[in-house]
């Protein structure tokens, strides 16, 4: 069992790629750089497939498969190993990360082809793969945190990839700082885990947390605090309220980065972490409620902003925030496998949406404003059709992957709380609206650009191939969960069941298994689908049938429109409440008073005192022997008299 025994190969491959390109690649041609970057991710993907093959043959009592390679930290009673583990959840994440990552690497070779920072881009991207694999393979919270911070670093580097653009560097900084807030919560959570359980190993912490009695609702015990602190970290990384502000700005990065890091993998790390810690969350009902409510509100909140955005990537960014909210809603109502399922399908269709958007931007020669597109359907058919598939998937069209995963979540939400379910359904309608709006504005209607200046062209094959593969996954990826509509098993949920064995889903899943044909119809024509249809209808009405309506509507609802297009002015609020006071304190107090006054004052003061003292003492050294003699005499007299006086 080579890969199971040598799990470290998986993260090592991309790290080698990153190191080779980053350190030695200075003089290499683009071809060599491409081969190094692609072969490392391809090998990682193949290794992941081989791992799956070996994992399937593993007897159930050996899962989770944990391998400790060396003691990483040993201090006092605390010990953390460099240990990796594989269970069903890890397998899903591994396949998503290496599979989608591999496709996006291929896509990037086309998209970034003419960029002067080609080599830098690929070494960052490989480095990201390394940290992401470390994150999902880690067998303890500390190693997971290393991966967690590493992907944050790569996210920062890649958002600010075009570092000559001020807005890109600002966006990178913003992402980094906002994530610091989340990571602070994560670290506190880790410390609390360490204090409570004495270790950070999943294998010890999670069973013990599961064995602890569930904390009564409305009372916050230690598990609740751990869960809430972990969720602060997750909210930072996965862009939930109130820490979501960095993700829309992160669109300053190259589009493949938006697809890989800010849609498919890194931003879902928070969901993965919550799912991984499900044993803690399940015994902390207060925290569960917080997760569900934050997730649900974020989903709705971001979807409403997405309604009026005009930048193709910004629409997708708010959509990502919204979909991540769905995943947290699922986790919050205890349907962890549904959350992970949506994570996976989302990786497919949102990754595809971003890549297709990149293809559109590529075709338009860098234009990102959907108001200046239109009528592209015939010019770039491959891009159109793949993006159409992804839109159908995210809008929850029956049969497409997004339908299954979103329905799972909404079903679980319905069982937990009707208001959450209603908000979720409303969000589904809004999702459908803004996605079809995007599609119609981009690909249908009249051309709103000057064809003399913009030479629209379909992207090269190495960009289209990943689109097609992802489109197939986006369409078909949901069928793993499909049979339960026909009263059969939900393969995905069954597959993950050992991981979430403590989750209360199992009885519910058993109840679901008896779903009959009528329930099937209800599910097919259920509220989310109807909401999606309504959304589609409005989008069609507004942007195909009578394109003047949106403007009229915006004029008649001027205040609402302004609120939405201003993104609820959250950035302005944060600027006024947090950023500007901090800048003011840093400038007027920390800089002028503390730095210039106290620190520089102390240093300069010491120097000044020495100099002044020296200045005064200089006069004692006259160079005149007789003066010295006189001083010696004075000293002798003084000491002698002192001696005599003390003796007497």
């Amino acid at each position, binding site marked *: 069992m080579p890969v199971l025994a040598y799990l470290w190969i998986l993260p090592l491959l991309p790290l080698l790629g990153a190191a080779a390109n980053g350190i030695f690649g200075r003089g290499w041609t683009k071809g060599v750089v491409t081969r190094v970057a692609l072969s490392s991710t391809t090998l990682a993907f193949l290794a992941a497939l081989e791992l799956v093959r070996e994992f399937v043959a593993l007897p159930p009592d050996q899962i989770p498969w944990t391998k400790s390679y060396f003691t990483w930290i040993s201090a006092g009673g605390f010990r953390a190993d460099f240990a990796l583990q594989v269970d069903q959840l890890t397998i899903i994440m591994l396949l998503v990360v290496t599979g989608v990552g591999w496709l996006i690497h291929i896509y990037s070779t086309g998209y970034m082809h003419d960029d002067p920072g080609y080599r830098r881009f690929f070494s960052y991207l490989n480095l990201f793969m390394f940290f992401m694999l470390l994150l999902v393979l880690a067998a303890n919270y500390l190693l997971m945190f290393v991966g967690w911070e590493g992907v944050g670093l790569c996210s920062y580097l890649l958002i600010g990839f075009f570092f000559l653009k001020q807005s890109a560097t600002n966006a990178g900084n913003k992402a980094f700082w906002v994530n610091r807030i989340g990571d602070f919560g994560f670290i506190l959570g880790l410390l609390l885990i360490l204090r409570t359980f004495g270790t950070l190993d999943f294998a010890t912490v999670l069973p013990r947390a599961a064995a602890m009695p569930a904390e009564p609702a409305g009372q916050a015990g230690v598990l609740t605090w751990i869960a809430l602190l972990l969720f602060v970290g997750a909210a930072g990384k996965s862009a939930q309220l109130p820490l979501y502000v960095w993700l829309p700005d992160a669109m300053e990065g190259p589009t493949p980065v938006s697809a890989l890091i800010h849609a498919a993998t890194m931003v879902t790390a928070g969901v993965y972490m919550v799912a991984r810690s499900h044993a803690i969350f399940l015994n902390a009902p207060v925290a569960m409620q917080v997760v569900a409510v934050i997730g649900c509100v974020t989903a709705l909140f971001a979807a409403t902003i997405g309604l009026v955005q005009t930048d193709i990537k910004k629409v997708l960014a708010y959509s990502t925030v919204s979909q991540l909210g769905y995943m947290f809603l699922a986790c919050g109502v205890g349907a962890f496998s549904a959350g992970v399922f949506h994570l996976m399908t989302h990786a497919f269709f949102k990754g595809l949406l971003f890549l297709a958007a990149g293809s559109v931007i590529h075709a338009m020669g860098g234009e990102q404003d959907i108001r200046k597109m239109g009528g592209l359907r015939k010019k770039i058919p491959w891009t159109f059709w793949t993006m159409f598939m992804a839109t159908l998937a995210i809008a929850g069209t029956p049969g497409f992957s997004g339908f299954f995963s979103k329905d799972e979540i909404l079903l679980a939400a319905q069982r937990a709380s009707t208001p959450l379910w209603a908000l979720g359904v409303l969000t589904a309608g809004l999702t459908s609206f803004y996605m079809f709006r995007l599609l119609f504005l981009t690909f249908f209607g009249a051309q709103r650009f000057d064809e003399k200046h913009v030479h629209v062209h379909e992207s090269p094959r190495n960009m289209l191939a990943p689109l097609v593969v992802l489109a197939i996954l986006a369409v078909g990826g949901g069928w793993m969960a499909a049979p339960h509509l026909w009263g059969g098993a939900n393969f995905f949920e069954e597959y993950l069941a050992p991981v979430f064995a403590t989750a209360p889903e199992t009885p519910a899943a058993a109840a679901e298994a008896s779903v009959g044909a009528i329930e099937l119809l209800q599910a097919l024509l259920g509220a989310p689908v109807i909401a999606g249809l309504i959304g589609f209808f409005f989008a069609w009405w507004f942007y195909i049938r009578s394109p003047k309506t949106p403007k009229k509507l915006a004029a008649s609802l001027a205040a609402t429109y302004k609120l939405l297009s201003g993104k609820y002015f959250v950035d302005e609020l944060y600027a006024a409440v947090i950023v500007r006071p901090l800048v003011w304190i840093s400038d007027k107090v920390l800089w002028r008073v503390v730095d210039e006054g106290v620190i520089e004052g102390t240093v300069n003061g010491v120097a000044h005192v020495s100099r002044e003292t020296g200045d005064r003492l200089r006069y004692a*050294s*006259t*160079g*005149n*022997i*007789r003066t010295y*003699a*006189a001083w010696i*005499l004075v000293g002798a007299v003084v000491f002698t008299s002192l001696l005599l006086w003390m003796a007497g």
Partner: protein
Amino acid sequence: MVPTSYYLVLSAVLFGLGVVAFIFKRNIITIFMSIELMLNAVNLAFVAFSRALGQLQGQVFVFFVIVVAAAEAAVGLAIIIVIARNRGTLNVERVDSLKH
């Protein structure tokens, strides 16, 4: 027998004269002589105490002082000759190039 205090007073007076001369005289030779005067004032005190206490250490010290004084005189006079040759003066207030 002359009391010890007499010797000590004489020693103190000689030492005081030496100090005053050292401080107020400008001629190097005179300053040098005043150093010798101080040394011998101390020698006198040593001998007086040696006699009064009936111990020999004081007298041994005097020999040491005389030897050191002889060596010092040899080195000091050599320096004075060099200064006189180079500077053409024996006035210490003129010999202050370290100060400037």
